[in-house]
């Protein structure tokens, strides 16, 4: 064992101090040293020995004593040793400062260290070791540039100064100049081949950083040969092993880490890697332990960042998002440079996304993207966030980019597709199809939800076959197949009678009894529903109804299935059954707005106005007025209410219209793209006469409504046509009506035909008008109004033909035929009115019959006249021929100048002919005057008729009579010309018809006219008080019914009033629409679950 010898002062003796037996109390040895004034190098040796033995206090005590001012004084000329002592202290404090984690103590240590070094410099400012020490200190403080300067000073003096070389190597390493650093390390090794193994660690790290992994590995291995306990080398090798990324490498790496941990349990690096490992093996407890230790032992930013990241990740995977977020945040704070360590940003982004903090999440993912602009995960996450933030365009951009970067990422296509569903169904379909293709190619099972979405999109685009295929693929195998393919045919037919009961489940019970397995997995319900919906669209209502019932059999709470069954029943006009089915749906949820709305529609169909309004109200209330359909229905209700009134209450009408407008507007405010509300608003505007505005609205709605099978809006076509009609653009109106009929109704809607006829009528295209009405009668045989209208059209045709100044006998003959037809139609109506109640006043019809008969008589005269005229014309032709002959003869005569006598004879003949013609002319005059007479006679006859009518009316009494009277007065005054009279007669017809309906009511009401007026007045004050107004509801209802038939009149004076029924049609249509809306959310919901 080594010992030192302290020379005893003034003697030759020496005190021997065995270094391994240094006294515990350093004061003993200090006393000796002081007493013997031992050379300072001995002080240093002893202090160093204490340090080596871990007796830090003693070490410090000796050195502090050794650097005290007395010593300075005493050993003033011993410079080197004093510097060495100071440098030792400086190095000691630098080290303390370096390892100290608390900032304040750290500072203090560094200050002390600085003081010592400065003191050393004061003794000799060229001492290299001091500069090296200073350099180390500066390095420890992180002041790389100044450290560089310090080491440079040393190296300038002695380019082989090993500590300085090492220091400088370290500086260069920190500056990232690894090759420079490597050179320096190498030089140090050359100069001092026996230097500690740690130098080779430096070389290894440089090589590693330079990408020379093999060299690095060798260097580390060499270190371990020299010093098997070198933790850094172990960790470095471990990391390199781990990075080989194969199982054996990882295992070796982990073994090394473990050894490093056993050797030195406080190496943060090793701890992090171990933690990382345990994270993947799922031992979260270990992860926490290890990272917490790592955090405690290091204050190196990136390492800490890594530790926090490990911790956060652990919490993240355990679902503790709050904590995970905090640690990710800490990790981000530690590294602060996304380029160095981007993972925590990603993690933080994920956690924030999960916690709903989209903005922060967004910025974090964007940082990830800065580092890795092509990172698909980050792109998808960003896309998702933008969706949540409602910036769909940005979202699309990101998702599109993601799909472009990785065209094999099915999930990205899925996301993109879902995003596009609302905006661009075609693109969405493409995206979904790609996703499906990718999944199939990858051998993965295609999720049902994806197939469902694809199916729905095909459905929406009208590609029904593809939709059906897709849905079938999605539902896969099951009991339903036998229904779809009719294999359970015998059962279906056994249940044949139940087919109509829609509610019957016997089919399924029977199947079960027979040992069939009637099962329906929950995740297939939506698809099956959609399939049924598709079958419905394909008119296979039989199978559709079985599928709906199958759904209900297994999931009796599936309201939509009830509603679809109800809709099927409704489409077949089985209102009672439909109401029952909706009732079942309401049993499941008595506040379901969809069910309530449907019920309201059905009640409207049943003419149950008050009930319908209440139902719509409660539907609206159930959703806090947010359900646009309920609001729309209420709007429609008010609109109907406005125009059903008997045209006697313009104020009431205005109130209802205003209310309707308000409701439509409310819907539009909530959903500015609601076609139905826009249509409604357009109707109200048209009703008020703002045709140009309403035309714009209708045109836009029409454009928007095309392109999806889920949006069928014939109403807007009709409304547009009405507007054209009202503006007098008959040709366009006709075209529009015809297109609408063809496009939406398979030409079966007699009502639209009626509109068409009305347009022809106004355009004076009598034959078209008549033909159109005949078609309408053929479609709706029991609608007598149509017959009446046909009669009127024929009458009008005849009258107008007779008024023409020039007409052929054929024309007149056809006029006569038409008049006969008209007479027959009117008389049939008159006869039928005995049998049935069709809303026409018998007497009025008789007036028509009378008028037509008169016309007929007149026409007969006309006819004769025309025939005679024709005859005359024929004569004339004959004459002309004769004249020609004569001319020729004359020419011949002139040529020959021989037969003068003959010529004279011929001239005589010519004269005679002329006379004859004049005679004819006179006769014609006579006839004309005859005509006038007959006209006059006719008129008086009609006046008589009218007189009769007013008399009848007088019986009814009341103020209306007066009105009528005055109207007739003015009429008579104007009835000078035949033409006018015709016109009046028509209007009159119309008015009378309306009157007649009133009269019917009056008869019913037993002259309760006034009472009703009062009621109407009551309703006037508040349209909502409508309910009250409906007191004598039966009367009211009937009146509405008749007012409807009133509208049917083509001669209706108010063209705008015809949009009436569109809205009723709309109500029907839009329930389908609502349904479809439901369909998709269903699919999406399932999708969300999947997420």
């Amino acid at each position, binding site marked *: 064992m080594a010992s030192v010898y302290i020379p005893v002062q003034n003697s030759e003796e020496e005190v021997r101090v065995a270094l391994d037996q240094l006294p515990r109390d350093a004061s003993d040895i200090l006393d000796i040293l002081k007493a013997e004034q031992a050379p300072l190098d001995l002080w240093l040796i002893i202090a160093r020995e204490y340090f080596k033995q871990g007796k830090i206090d003693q070490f410090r005590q000796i050195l502090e004593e050794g650097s005290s001012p007395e010593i300075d004084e005493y050993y003033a000329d011993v410079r080197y040793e004093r510097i060495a002592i100071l440098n030792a202290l400086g190095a000691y404090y630098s080290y303390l400062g370096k390892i100290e984690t608390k900032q304040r103590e750290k500072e203090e240590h560094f200050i002390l260290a600085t003081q010592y070094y400065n003191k050393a410099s004061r003794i000799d400012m060229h001492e290299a070791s001091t500069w090296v020490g200073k350099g180390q200190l500066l390095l420890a403080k992180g002041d790389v540039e100044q450290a560089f300067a310090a080491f440079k000073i040393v190296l300038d003096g002695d380019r082989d100064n090993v500590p300085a070389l090492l220091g400088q190597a370290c500086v260069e390493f920190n500056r990232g100049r690894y090759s420079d650093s490597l050179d320096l390390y190498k030089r140090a090794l050359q100069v001092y081949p026996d230097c500690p193994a740690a130098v080779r660690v430096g070389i290894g790290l440089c090589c590693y950083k330079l990408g020379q992994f093999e060299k690095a590995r060798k260097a580390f291995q060499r270190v371990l040969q020299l010093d098997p306990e070198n933790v850094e080398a172990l960790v470095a090798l471990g990391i390199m092993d781990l990075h080989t990324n194969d199982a054996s490498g990882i295992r070796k790496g982990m073994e090394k880490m473990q050894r490093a941990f056993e050797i030195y349990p406080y190496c943060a690096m090793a701890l992090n890697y171990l933690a990382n490992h345990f994270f993947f093996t799922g031992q979260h407890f270990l992860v926490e332990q290890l990272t917490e230790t790592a955090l405690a032992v290091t204050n190196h930013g990136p390492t800490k960042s890594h530790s926090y990241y490990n911790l956060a990740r652990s919490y993240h995977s355990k679902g503790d998002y709050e904590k995970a977020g905090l640690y990710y945040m800490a990790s981000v704070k530690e590294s602060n440079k996304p380029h160095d360590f981007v993972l925590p940003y990603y993690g933080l982004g994920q956690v924030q996304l999960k916690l709903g903090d989209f903005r922060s999440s967004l910025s974090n993912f964007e940082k990830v993207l800065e580092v890795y602009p092509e990172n698909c995960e980050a792109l998808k996450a960003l896309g998702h966030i933008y969706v949540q933030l409602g910036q769909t365009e940005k979202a699309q951009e990101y998702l599109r980019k993601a799909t472009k970067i990785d065209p094999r990422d099915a999930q990205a296509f899925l996301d993109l597709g879902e995003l596009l569903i609302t905006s661009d169904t075609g693109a969405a379909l493409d995206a979904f199809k790609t996703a499906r293709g990718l999944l199939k190619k990858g051998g993965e099972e295609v999720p049902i939800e994806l197939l469902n979405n694809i199916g729905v999109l095909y459905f929406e685009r009208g590609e029904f076959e593809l939709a059906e295929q897709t849905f079938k693929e999605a539902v896969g195998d099951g009991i339903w197949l036998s229904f779809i393919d009719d294999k359970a*045919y015998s059962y279906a*037919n056994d249940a*044949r009678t139940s087919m109509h009961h829609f509610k019957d489940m016997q089919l399924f019970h029977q199947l079960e009894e027979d040992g069939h397995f009637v099962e329906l997995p929950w995740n297939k319900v939506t698809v099956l529903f959609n399939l049924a919906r598709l079958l419905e669209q394909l008119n296979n209502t039989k199978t559709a109804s079985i599928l709906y019932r199958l759904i209900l059999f297994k999931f009796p709470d599936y309201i939509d299935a009830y509603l679809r069954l109800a809709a099927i029943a409704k489409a077949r006009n089985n209102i009672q059954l439909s109401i029952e089915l909706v009732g079942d749906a309401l049993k499941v949820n008595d506040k379901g707005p969809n069910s309530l709305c449907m019920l309201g529609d059905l009640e409207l169909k049943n003419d149950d106005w008050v009930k319908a309004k209440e139902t719509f109200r409660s539907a609206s209330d159930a959703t806090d007025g947010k359900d646009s359909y309920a609001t729309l229905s209420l709007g429609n209700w008010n609109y109907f209410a406005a125009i059903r009134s008997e045209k006697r209450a313009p104020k009431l009408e205005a109130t209802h219209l205003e209310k309707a407008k308000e409701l439509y507007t409310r819907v539009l405010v909530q959903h500015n793209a609601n076609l139905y509300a826009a249509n409604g608003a357009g109707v109200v505007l048209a009703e008020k006469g703002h045709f140009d505005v309403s035309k714009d609205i209708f045109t836009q709605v029409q454009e928007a409504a095309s392109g999806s099978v889920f949006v069928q809006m014939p109403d807007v076509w009709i409304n547009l046509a009405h507007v054209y009609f009202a503006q007098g653009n008959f040709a366009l109106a006709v075209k529009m009506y015809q297109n609408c009929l063809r496009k939406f109704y398979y030409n079966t809607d007699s009502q639209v035909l009626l509109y068409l006829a009305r347009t022809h009528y106004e355009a004076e295209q009598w034959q078209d008008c008549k033909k159109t009405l005949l078609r309408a009668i*053929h479609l709706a*045989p029991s609608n007598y109004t149509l017959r009446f209208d046909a009669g009127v059209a024929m009458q009008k045709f005849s009258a107008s033909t007779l008024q023409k100044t020039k007409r052929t006998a054929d024309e007149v003959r056809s006029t006569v035929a038409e008049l006969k037809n008209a007479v027959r139609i009117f008389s049939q109506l008159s006869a039928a009115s005995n049998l049935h109640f069709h809303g026409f006043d018998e007497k009025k019809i008789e007036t028509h019959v009378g008028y037509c008969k008169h016309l007929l008589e007149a026409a007969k005269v006309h006819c004769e006249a025309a025939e005679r005229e024709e005859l005359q014309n024929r004569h004339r032709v004959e004459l002309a021929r004769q004249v020609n002959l004569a001319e020729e003869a004359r020419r011949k005569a002139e040529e020959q100048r021989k037969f003068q006598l003959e010529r004279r004879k011929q001239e005589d003949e010519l004269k005679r002919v002329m006379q004859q013609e004049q005679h004819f002319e006179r006769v014609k005059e006579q006839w004309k005057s005859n005509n006038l007479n007959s006209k006059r006679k006719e008129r008086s006859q009609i006046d008589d008729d009218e007189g009769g009518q007013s008399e009848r009316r007088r019986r009814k009494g009341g103020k209306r009579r007066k009105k009528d009277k005055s109207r007739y007065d003015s009429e008579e005054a104007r009835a000078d010309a035949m033409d006018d009279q015709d016109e009046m007669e028509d209007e009159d017809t119309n008015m009378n018809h309306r009157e007649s309906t009133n009269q019917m009511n009056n008869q019913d009401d037993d002259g309760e006219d006034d009472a009703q007026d009062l009621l109407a007045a009551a309703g006037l004050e508040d349209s909502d008080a409508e309910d009250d107004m409906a007191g004598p509801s039966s009367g009211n209802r009937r009146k509405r019914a008749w007012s409807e038939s009133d509208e049917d009149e083509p001669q209706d004076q108010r063209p705008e009033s015809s949009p009436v029924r569109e809205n009723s049609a709309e109500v029907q249509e839009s329930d389908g629409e609502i349904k479809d809306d439901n369909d998709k959310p269903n699919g999406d919901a399932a999708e969300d679950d999947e997420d």
Partner: protein
Amino acid sequence: MKLAGLKSIENAHDESVWAAAWVPATESRPALLLTGSLDETVKLWMPDELVLQQNNTGHCLGVVAVAAHPSGIIAASASLDSFVRVFDVDTNATIATLEAPPSEVWQMQFDPKGSILAVAGGSSASIKLWDTATWKLIDTLAIPRPESSKPTDRGGNKKFVLSVAWSPDGRRLACGSMDGTISIFDVNRAKFLHHLEGHYMPVRSLVYSPVDPRVLFSASDDGHVHMYDAEGKSLIGAMSGHASWVLSVDVSPDGAAIATGSSDKTVRLWDLNMRAAVQTMSNHADQVWGVAFRPPGGAGVRAGRLASVSDDKSISLYDYS
């Protein structure tokens, strides 16, 4: 079981063709196709080339129904003005003009023996029976009104009779009405028997199966064809598939198939064993108002023929095999 298009005549009439029936073959000539149109004419066509044989005028306001006597000698046509014209097929001589005001005239059919012409009487809620020898009205089979309804009730209108069909044995008469109910009458006793329910929209066409006198097929605006046991009052089956109203139904002479014409512009052939549409013909451009299978018989004519007429003014002939 399939249809193959043989011949189509575009613009066979100047206007929509609304009615079609086959005049059975006589000794002197084969079966002819009889069509009626909105253009107020009734035309006779010779198969298979559909050569126009005759063009009968005289109706007003569009011909809604045509019917041929089983003998093939006389036929009847009816128009919207509620006149029925009975005429000699070969000479076009008018035999009788029938009307029974205020009842209008819709579908009509001769009974299998040819002694009675049954005419659907529209709003009179009845079927008018005419003796084919004397051309006198012999009976009116009225649908009983529900007791509750008053004569002034609007509901009375709903029993508007549109269609008639004789059972092959001539004992039963079925009629379809606007409200979708089908009424069955016992002809011999002139008695209403019962209603068949299931449709809630107009039933425009009815036909009995030639092989089973109990089975009745009905075509309705609800897009369905129903198959009833007319005696047992029960619905045997419902066939859906048409996208719009089913306007006409006829059953093949072998009783194995029915053909339907619809507003959806198609003619469908249904296999009665499968109770499913086996074929859809889409050659028409507008509503198909009538389909008719040619009755068997005639000189050596065994091939099945189906004719269809449409709003697109055309007539089509198909081979049925």
